[in-house]
């Protein structure tokens, strides 16, 4: 669902020397990394490695104290806020599944559908005719077709995760940032989620932050290892698992 007519950028996301400090503690320390269009990328690292801060920086929640963050080669993300960045085409899934609990599954997706986001547009206009079809398509894709009329709050933990991924798809962003999607899922759900994310990539670039190594293995993609706010290693999972520094960070203490 990449917009046609726009040039294909070299990098969908590009960070250079990004530093974020909270009261002297450097959550990110000169982090540099690049994600290609259509790529599926996993970011792993121990607690406090800066994974969530990385997402906060890309989505405009946190401003870096130094460094550059570019989307599609030339859009400087540090100059935009969350809502603008979302409209530019970056979707974010939270670590804790966050859906609108009192709206139905279909309404959750309807809210996320790409379209005008102004106060008066939402007051006066309905969605386009194809909204229902698009919602149905996404429901089928994330396996929630039978749940469409249930309130978001009534879904199981795993279903909420999928609904949230569905909401990201409805936004049809070019880049999806997904924070620990497999947390709290059963093995079967984890497997299905990995499959879903693999399917989504290609059309969208997907960056997954994850703890769970089985899940990362199932994603079968390039892996970036973060440690203390900077990149420790990058490559295939097999490659980074051989890396001595990675072994030390993960197993050494």
């Amino acid at each position, binding site marked *: 669902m990449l917009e046609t007519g726009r040039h294909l950028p070299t990098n969908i996301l590009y960070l250079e020397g990004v530093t974020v400090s909270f009261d002297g503690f450097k959550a990110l320390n000169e982090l540099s990394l690049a994600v290609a269009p259509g790529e599926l990328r996993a970011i792993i690292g121990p607690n406090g490695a800066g994974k969530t801060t990385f997402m906060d920086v890309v989505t405009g929640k946190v401003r870096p104290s130094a460094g550059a963050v570019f989307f599609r080669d030339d859009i400087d993300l540090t100059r935009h806020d969350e809502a603008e960045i979302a409209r530019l085409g970056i979707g974010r899934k939270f670590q804790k599944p*966050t859906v609108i609990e009192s709206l139905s599954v279909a309404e959750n997706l309807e809210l996320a559908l790409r379209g005008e986001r102004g*106060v008066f547009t939402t007051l006066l206009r309905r969605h386009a005719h194809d909204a229902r079809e698009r919602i149905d398509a996404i429901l089928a894709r994330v396996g929630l077709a039978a749940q469409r009329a249930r309130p978001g709050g009534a879904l199981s933990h795993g279903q909420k995760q999928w609904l949230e991924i569905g909401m990201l798809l409805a*936004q049809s962003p070019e880049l999806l940032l997904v924070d620990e999607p497999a947390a709290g899922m059963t093995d079967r759900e984890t497997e299905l989620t990995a499959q879903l994310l693999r399917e989504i990539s290609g059309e969208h670039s997907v960056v997954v932050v994850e703890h769970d190594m089985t899940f990362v293995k199932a994603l079968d993609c390039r892996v970036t290892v973060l440690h203390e706010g900077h990149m420790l290693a990058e490559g295939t999972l097999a490659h980074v698992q051989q890396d001595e520094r990675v072994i030390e960070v993960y197993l050494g203490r």
Partner: protein
Amino acid sequence: MTGSPRLLNDAASRWLLAGLGMLILVVPLLNLAVPETSPFHLSTYMVSLFGKYLCLALLALALDLVWGYAGILSLGHGAFFALGGYAMGMYLMRQIGSRGVYGNPLLPDFMVFLNWQELPWYWYGFDNFFFAALMVALVPGVLAFAFGWFAFRSRVTGVYLSIITQALAYALMLAFFRNDMGFGGNNGLTDFKELLGFSLTSAATKNGLFVGSGLALIAGFLLCRWVVVSRLGRVLVAVRDAESRTRFMGYRVEHYKLFVFVLSAVLAGIAGALYVPQVGIINPGEFAPLASIEVVVWVAVGGRGYLYGAIVGALLVNYAKTWFTGAFPEIWLFLLGGLFVVSTLFLPRGVVGLFGQRRQPPPSAATGGNN
């Protein structure tokens, strides 16, 4: 558009509208057409009392729009109500003309008493009803806009926002208590004679004001309902349930909050303007923090997040208040407090929640968790 909860709501809303329609037909009939000797006769005092309740219900409706749907717990809505009331009061003061105690054709009595020589500039125009009516909406609306602009842009939420709304009401109360503000100080504005040439003491005018209040409540209800069933209404619910999520979906949360806050303040101002001629006085007491908190109690008791719940709650609690303050004046405040505690603990969806089937989930109070 989607799902049954909205339809169910609609049935309840239709019941409410039918009830209000009946009320504004039957009350004037019982007062004007039924002879005073009949046991069915309703005194003119009661007509004004019911009219007053309808205005308070409109205020509660306004609060429910921001609190029930957008999750903004305003503890200062009484201030917007009072500002609308003062705008109407200023018009009514100018209407007195030379019939005041001091007979000054231009200056209201309290200004003559303070030895003022001329009318302050901000009293100009209030001799014109349409100007005053415009101010009824504009003054609370502009204040809400200015306040909301800073508060929502700075992302002040939750308890902190509630506290500053309370501070806003309190500051206005202190300001209006001052004589040199030019709004009658402690005594406020009173001794009104007529509205648009109709004597405020006549039964016909009182019935007219009652019907006007009822129609305003119905119109306000339909307007709020239209807002909440639109796509914008769902965005508001999203803001209430998961503000951060909504922002990351690309919605400018602060614009939505500002829109609904201003709309709500205007409705509160209109409620105040209709209230003042029926009670015959407006004074700084209306700005008191307690007055605003009472509105929250009405909405909580009636049921937050349904619109009709706020109306039912306001009518119920105020009727009870009238009855109890007559019968047991000493314990009324304890009862009010008790009512709030009981409804919070045992009726999370308020009185109207007792009747509706469990179809719609209650507005979740604490879903602030978004990483």
